[in-house]
């Protein structure tokens, strides 16, 4: 999803994840009518989605391993399985060396990889990435996008919002261009 700042990309993501109230129309996500969801049902919708945000949203007092483990704790996955899944995910995103470190000691690119690993650890059906490369230099941005392409091949749907459309190069990607709250373009690369 591309478009200039203020086009409505983040608002759409907030609507999808029930952070924003729907004033008109209907938002349907994974079979849920988001507008009709009760307060207690919202967490269960969010569990089906993985989130990668520009600000990473990592817990500073937890290690890389513990941060990635969090969604599995919320889902009450047993410790043994958590260890197995987190270790596998850490090696997939290339964070084995820093798995016991705290986020403040990591580079921006590493922190974003932790966020990606955390978004994918519980096998969500879709991953929402809102300006995931906003704080990163072009080289790191490319590596993050490559990570998305790599995981999308395993069947996860990534919805990535960015204002830098040069990052989207992979054939088969669907490009949605929004501007001033309107969908102005929809094509496949």
């Amino acid at each position, binding site marked *: 999803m591309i478009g200039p700042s203020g086009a409505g990309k*983040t608002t759409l*993501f*907030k609507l999808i*994840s029930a*952070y924003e109230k729907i004033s008109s129309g209907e938002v349907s996500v994974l079979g849920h009518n988001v507008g009709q969801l009760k307060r*207690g049902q919202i*967490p*269960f*919708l*969010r*569990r089906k989605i993985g*989130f990668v*945000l*520009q*600000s990473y*949203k*990592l*817990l*500073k*007092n937890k290690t890389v391993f513990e941060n990635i483990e*969090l*969604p599995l704790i*919320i*889902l009450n996955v047993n410790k043994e399985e958590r260890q197995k899944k987190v270790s596998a995910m850490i090696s997939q995103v290339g964070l084995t060396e820093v798995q016991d470190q705290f986020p403040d000691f990591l580079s921006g690119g590493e922190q974003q990889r932790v966020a990606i690993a*955390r978004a994918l650890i519980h096998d969500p059906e879709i991953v929402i990435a*809102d300006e995931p490369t906003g704080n990163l230099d072009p080289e790191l941005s490319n590596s993050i996008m490559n990570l998305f392409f790599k995981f999308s091949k395993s069947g996860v749907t990534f919805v990535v919002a960015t204002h830098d459309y040069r990052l989207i190069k992979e054939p088969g990607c669907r490009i949605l261009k929004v501007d001033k709250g309107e969908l102005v373009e929809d094509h496949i690369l």
Partner: protein
Amino acid sequence: MKIAPLKISLFVIITLSILMIITSLLCYKNFIGLLSLWSRANKMNIYLKVDSTDKDKTDVLNLIQQTPQVSSAVVLDRQKAGLEFQNSLKNFSSGLITEDEMIDLIPETIEVDLQSSLTLTERETIFTELAKKMSANAQVDEISYSASWLKKLEFIDRILRSIGASVFLVLVTSISYLVALMMRSYVEDSKQEIEVYSLLGATRWSVYRIFLKDVFLFISTSLIIAFSSVLLIFTLLKNKLNTSGLFGMISDSLHFLSLTESISIVVLLFLFIFINSFFTIQASVNKLNQLSYD
């Protein structure tokens, strides 16, 4: 959760509050215990008329026994009482009065005592009722039971209860306020963590649980520390009093809270602080519900 200074402050506040409440209750219990001890030594004396017969004595005794709270009603040995009285006056009245004359001066007396489990108020009420009933009896000449002292003690007890209840209410309100204040800051300082948990699909209950787990730990540790401290100070004080001759008798009458009292206090305080914390956490987390997504 992080924020060590907040956690420490919360822990200190809870511990001190519990300590104050336990100490107040212990002081009240022992003060009333000492007053009751004194009042228990105070028995009722019923003096019969000079011409009363053995049958009259038995009738009066039967009448006294009708009051179920009476633990003992004993006819005093006049001879023994006379001798004791004569001995105490030996230096002043030697040879002035004979033993028989002395005994004749002492009226037939029935000493009445009540069950030790009665409170000061109950003791005073029962003695008053018994005195009223006995004065109506033709064979009873006079009744003595230090009614005014019992009334004064009952009054002191009532005042103490009122002060105790007020202090308890003030303490409990202060604790509620302080715990609420600390919990609110604690939750607000953990805003970022709540946001992350919410983003990852944690339910409200699982967010509350994170804080409640900490609160549970605080209260349990605070209760253990507060109880142990009070028990330690109490034991040391009692031992100190025991070794000093003047207060030795008092020290025997000092008791720590019984197991039932201790359990009741622990359960009550625990529930009170825990419920108070829960509602504060709930309100604070709900207030933070507009979690930032960005």
